[in-house]
């Protein structure tokens, strides 16, 4: 009986590798976020038009960017998984979704917090916010589809197709809502404050974004380790020859 070892080796090799990377990403995330918060909350001057409420963008914009970025990355892994039939790719898809959904949720909540003082309303049907809301539904769809299918392989592949279809949808939503808004002459205040944003503000925002990105990497890698443990248990651990080896890999 011939066993295709490379098929198993991917998660097997990745598990300890991910374990080594997590502390690094975690530390970088903590440091960058700390500096970002220092600049955003303490150093950066106030904004003329919006007053201090603008400081919300230091969490809102990074969260919104991450939510979109993670969805694209998730769909990318789904495409790799569907194309190459690689299980590790589907595990990445599975690990990314909750963090992406969390950032989407945060972008929506902080968007409302920003909108109330600035627009005078918790919610405005602006293209960005609407796309963000639809994105949340899509994350929910991908995750719920996965949990409602019992067969692991089918769950992987079906939710992968679902994620890929969604990635086409988001830009269409964005432009359609923008088009719709110009038609209705609705809110035209854009969320990213001003084109010539003060350099210090931009620095703070980019630092926060980088910090969120590193945080996502750390969290996603540790989630993918959980997923490997949960899903591969028998096949995975029984490939190791001794208990000592198991302990080492862990």
């Amino acid at each position, binding site marked *: 009986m011939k066993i295709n070892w490379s098929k198993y080796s991917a998660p097997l090799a990745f598990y300890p590798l991910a374990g080594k990377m997590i502390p690094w990403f975690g530390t970088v995330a903590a440091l960058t976020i700390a500096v970002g918060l220092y600049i955003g909350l303490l150093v950066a001057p106030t904004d003329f038009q919006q007053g201090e409420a603008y400081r919300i963008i230091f969490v809102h914009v990074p969260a919104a960017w991450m939510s979109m970025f993670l969805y694209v990355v998730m769909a990318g892994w789904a495409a790799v998984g569907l194309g190459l039939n690689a299980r590790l790719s589907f595990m990445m898809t599975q690990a990314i979704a909750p963090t992406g959904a969390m950032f989407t949720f945060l972008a929506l909540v902080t968007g409302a917090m920003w909108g109330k003082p600035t627009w005078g309303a918790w919610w405005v049907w602006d293209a960005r916010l609407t796309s963000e809301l639809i994105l949340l539904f899509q994350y929910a769809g991908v995750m719920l*589809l996965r949990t409602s*299918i019992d067969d692991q392989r089918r769950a992987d592949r079906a939710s992968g197709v679902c994620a890929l279809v969604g990635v086409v949808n988001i830009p269409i939503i964005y432009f359609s809502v923008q088009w719709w808004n110009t038609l209705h002459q609705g809110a035209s205040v854009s969320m990213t404050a001003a084109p010539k944003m003060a350099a210090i503000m931009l620095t703070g925002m980019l630092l926060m974004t980088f910090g969120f990105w590193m945080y996502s990497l750390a969290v996603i890698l540790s989630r993918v380790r959980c997923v490997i443990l949960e899903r591969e248990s028998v096949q995975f651990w029984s490939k190791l020859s001794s208990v000592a080896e198991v302990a080492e890999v862990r």
Partner: protein
Amino acid sequence: MTQPSLWETLWGIIWRDLLLAMRRRSDVAISVLFLVIVASLFPLGVGPEPAVLRTIAAGVLWVAALLACLLSLGRVFTADYLDGVLEQMLLIPQPLPVLVMGKVFAHWMVSGLPIVLLSPLLGLQFGLEGEVLGTLVLSLLLGTPTLSMIGSIGAALVLGVRGSGLLVALLVLPLYVPVLIFGAGAVTSSMAGVGGEANLSLLGACLVLSLFFAPWATAAALRIALE
């Protein structure tokens, strides 16, 4: 033995589904009836002022049409999945996406087309007239096939999954948003006297896009579902 041409096969699929729909006319009637009822509930809820009704007409009729489409999605593949006809369809010696297109077209004939045909009547209920009514029909004519195409992806993904009825709504409704915006937008702008052409051409673009991509996605989803 000669292979039947692609068109013959496609026609075979469409013919069978239309024949089945004729045998089960009540299924078709239900989604049409649903549309009429939903559309009639709004005036009862909002009040009978013609001005108000005219403003909400585009949105209400489009949302109702969208929900009626959603309701009928379960019929695209489920029965075939349960009685084994779907697995036979996967073994037909023709490209699956094309066969899917045939099935979706047949489904649109019995669920989308009745909505289009009925829409002028509903439009009258809401006080729409003349050109606006025409735009409504045209927007639905372009939009409902798109809804069926997109919906088929969701219907294929949830085949045989528990709680599939609600799940398909969650999967498909986000994808329906652009069609809703352009469809209702066409009627609204036509009502404002701007003319609905821009929105209608965007609807057409959506239709072309979905005709290109949805059959492939649906075919992939069907293969996954039947593994």
